[in-house]
């Protein structure tokens, strides 16, 4: 089975802190994604990566950055956390190429910024 893991299920941080969210997948997927999930807004794409060291902005990249130094690991960084970044963060991955596109999701990290 494909496994996508995230470093924390719950995280509480203070305003202004630098926050790292880690995601690891074990299926050698080329693509990895970070989403933010908020009630009534669905999933919104923050960033995605299609290869090591490659990244593309999604719909809401402001206030976030990402890092992909190894194929299996994709990190989301909040440079200076703010209360409006309190949310559920979902990582996902899938194969590149002209595949059927299914994404495999991690369990999510519920981040609270105080």
């Amino acid at each position, binding site marked *: 089975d494909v496994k996508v893991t995230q470093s924390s299920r719950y995280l509480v941080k203070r305003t202004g802190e630098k926050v790292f969210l880690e995601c690891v997948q074990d299926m050698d997927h080329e693509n990895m994604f970070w*989403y933010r999930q908020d009630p*009534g807004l669905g*999933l*919104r*794409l923050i960033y995605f990566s299609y290869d090591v060291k490659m990244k593309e902005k999604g719909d809401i990249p402001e206030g976030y950055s990402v890092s992909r130094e190894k194929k299996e690991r994709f990190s989301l960084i909040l440079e200076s956390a703010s209360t409006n970044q309190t949310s559920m963060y979902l990582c996902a991955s899938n194969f*590149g190429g002209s595949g*059927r*596109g*299914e994404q495999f*999701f991690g369990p999510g990290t519920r981040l609270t910024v105080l």
Partner: protein
Amino acid sequence: AQTVTQSQPEMSVQEAETVTLSCTYDTSESDYYLFWYKQPPSRQMILVIRQEAYKQQNATENRFSVNFQKAAKSFSLKISDSQLGDAAMYFCAYRRGSGGYQKVTFGTGTKLQVIP
């Protein structure tokens, strides 16, 4: 830009009954995929069913089936013989078909309650 609309924020169904969740999308592409994902409470999101736009036949997966109306840009999910384990958030999603790293656009979700 592609958009996906789920107009039913919440729905409920009696156990063993059938329920249909609605989804419409907007695209100018001819080659694309549509998905329904399920997110149970406090659990990981998983794929329920997938439809390739070039296929006329509606996809089915056990108790789950879709009604894909390409011209109307409608993609509804039917759950038959509803079970308590079907209670979850359901997201409709769209992905353009060509290319390696295509963005997926999600709807806002429908919360399904199953009443015993």
